[in-house]
């Protein structure tokens, strides 16, 4: 009755789920539909890539010679020469050619300021002073008219410096207004609440272009006779009022996220309304809305391209200015568009990555 001990077959080793091979197996060839999709997409890429490489690099012209570019157009190559030829005109617009180091320095200072402001260690009161100093530096350098610098009026400003400045300044100016409007919208006083609601809904209901038309055509009528205001300032006021309405809604979202108990606790301590807002509610609410404000900044940065419609030559406008009058280079406008598209993309993409990063930083206390 005794039977020999018969061990069952050993189990196979567990399937490897880490490394390149398994990743490809699950993510590219998971089932037949997935495999088919992968093959189809790879086929498309293989079909399209050689032509693209030929257009972008092999047959492309990189030197600023219009005749070579014309020849490249026949063979189907890109003309990056247009960028090499016109990049200063595209980036700095009609700013006097010999003086273009000034907008370059001013823009670098402004971008550096933005980068510094993005780092949390520097969120200190002196940052506000730094902002004032850099903005003053920007305008002094751009306007000139002192210390041997040639005076340059604002109608010669253009290109990237204008884009960066309009976006930054309008957000900075809109911020205090947005906080006031957001507080006003939550106020218990019916008249103040109504004013804020009407302002926000009115502005959010109309396109930016109508606000810019208003700044451009109607604003001169609003001023006392004989008084004229620079078109750049009018447009800045328009964009500021526009972005303040959107930002007010973002700030209001932050205020709503703060529990009522915080306000009540501040009241119990005997703080006045403004003390309670300044010391208790706003610091918490504003920390929550940093990603939202960042997204608003990206939106405004993109929307500054609209001021070209009211004849301010920021990046989009200065590109048109650089190429439209030059019949040698006009055929390559699409390539020049790709160049400024890349500039906008680099700015906006890095800002959106930052926004995502700061969002994860702020919610770190909640996800553990």
């Amino acid at each position, binding site marked *: 009755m005794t039977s020999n001990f018969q061990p069952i077959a050993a189990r196979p080793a567990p399937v490897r789920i880490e490394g390149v091979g398994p990743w490809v197996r699950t993510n*590219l060839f998971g089932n037949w539909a997935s495999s088919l999709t992968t093959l189809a997409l790879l086929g498309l890429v293989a079909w399209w890539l050689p032509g693209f490489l030929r257009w972008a690099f092999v047959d492309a012209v990189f030197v600023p010679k219009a005749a070579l570019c014309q020849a490249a157009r026949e063979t189907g190559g890109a003309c990056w020469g247009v960028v090499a030829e016109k990049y200063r005109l595209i980036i700095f617009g009609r700013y006097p050619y010999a003086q273009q180091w000034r907008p370059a320095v001013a823009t670098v200072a402004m971008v550096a300021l933005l980068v510094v402001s993005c780092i949390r260690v520097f969120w200190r009161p002196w940052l506000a002073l730094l902002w004032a100093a850099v903005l003053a530096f920007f305008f002094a350098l751009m306007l000139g008219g002192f210390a041997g610098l040639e005076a340059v009026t604002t109608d010669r400003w253009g290109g990237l410096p204008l884009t960066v400045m309009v976006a930054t300044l309008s957000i900075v100016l809109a911020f205090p207004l947005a906080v006031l409007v957001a507080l006003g919208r939550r106020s218990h006083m019916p008249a*103040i609440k109504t004013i804020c609601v009407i302002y926000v809904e009115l502005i959010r209901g109309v396109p930016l272009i109508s606000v810019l038309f208003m700044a451009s055509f109607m604003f001169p*009528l609003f001023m006392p006779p004989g008084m004229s205001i620079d078109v750049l300032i009018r447009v800045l006021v328009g964009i500021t009022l526009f972005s303040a309405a959107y930002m007010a809604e973002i700030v209001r979202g932050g205020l709503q996220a703060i529990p009522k108990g915080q306000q009540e606790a501040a009241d119990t301590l005997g703080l006045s309304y403004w003390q309670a807002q300044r010391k208790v509610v706003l610091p918490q609410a504003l920390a929550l809305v940093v990603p939202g404000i960042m997204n608003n900044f990206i939106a405004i940065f993109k929307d500054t391209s609209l001021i*070209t419609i009211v004849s301010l030559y920021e990046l989009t406008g200065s590109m048109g200015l650089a190429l439209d009058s030059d019949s040698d280079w006009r055929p390559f406008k699409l390539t020049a568009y790709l160049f400024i598209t890349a500039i*906008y993309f680099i700015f906006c993409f890095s800002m959106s990555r930052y926004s995502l990063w700061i969002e994860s930083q702020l919610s770190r206390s909640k996800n553990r």
Partner: protein
Amino acid sequence: MAVSASAPPKQPWSWRSRAARSVLYQIIALGMIGFAIWFLAHNTMLNMRVRGIQSGFGFLSSPAGFDIGELLIPYDSNDPYWRAFLVGVINTLRVAIIGTVLATLLGTLLGIGRFSRNALVRGLCSAYVEVFRNVPVLLQLLMWYLFMTTALPGPGDEKSILGLFFLSNGGLSYPVPVWGPGQALALAGALAGALLSWLWARRARRLFEQTGRPRPVLWPSLLLIVGGALAGWGLGGAPTDWNIPAPGTFSVNGGSSLTPEFLSVLLGLVLYTASYIAEVVRAGIASVPLGQTEAASAIGLSKGQQMRLVALPQALRVIIPPLTNQFLNLTKNSSLAVAIGYPDVVSISNTALNQTGRAIECITIIMAVYLITSLGTSALMNWYNQRAAIKER
């Protein structure tokens, strides 16, 4: 005593009380706003008198004197201004409505694509979203327009697609059926089918609630609608006449066509807005906890049912409010059509403004049109949102 014990004692009225102060603040705020409005209005009146600008909407009934390239209603340059504005409003709505539908479809596909099991599909969808979201929409419109007008072949050698569609720098020509009683009957049949399928859906739901046995709804409805359309078409003599475009020497003749302006505005707005809608859809789907689908799977629902009955209704609640914002953004962004010469309401107002010099009136018209459209869209979406919201007691 009927008075509740917890009612606070009435405070004696004083200038220092909170109520008095709030009245004071409100009076100051209203006073400041009132003064600002008076100041601006006063200056405007003064300026207009000095510069001899006439005001009022009387100009709307005088002849416009300019032609419009894109018409859905009859119009010529002798028609009054109000009719030109009407053409502009219709053009705006046309691009906004078609754009909304297309952007929603494309955006939903891209948003779902980011959950694909295939890494290539996921990567392509997120690359699309990042690229199109981070470039100004105005730039995209200008690029599409430049592409349409310079990179496409000129008249004479149009790009033919299946011999039915013709693409050139003059636009896209496409075949249309010759309108006749057959088509009208087919439409009527489809409508009747839709009505019947709505009735069947109601009955199927009642039967399901009474017996617990699910009845098919989707296929019978499709069958009823298609069957109705086919029956109407057959009754009308089954007309098969199509007006197919044919390339001529200088232009494409016959068929119907879309202008390059319309195509570039539509394409630019749809591709841009779709990238935002994709993010909205992705966030909505991601907001439904995994446990919901697992629970649905545990009670034996099929994959489709899990999506349709459990995941989607919950995702929609998160999706609808930001989706409304995207619809409004698309409508507002359609105002950028002015940059490439598509005759929308902003473009028409701009022309009228330059001709008559009535800045205030023309800009008021633009703002009123967009405000009404925005409020209308929000009202519609709020109504839908209420239907999709959680029903609590």
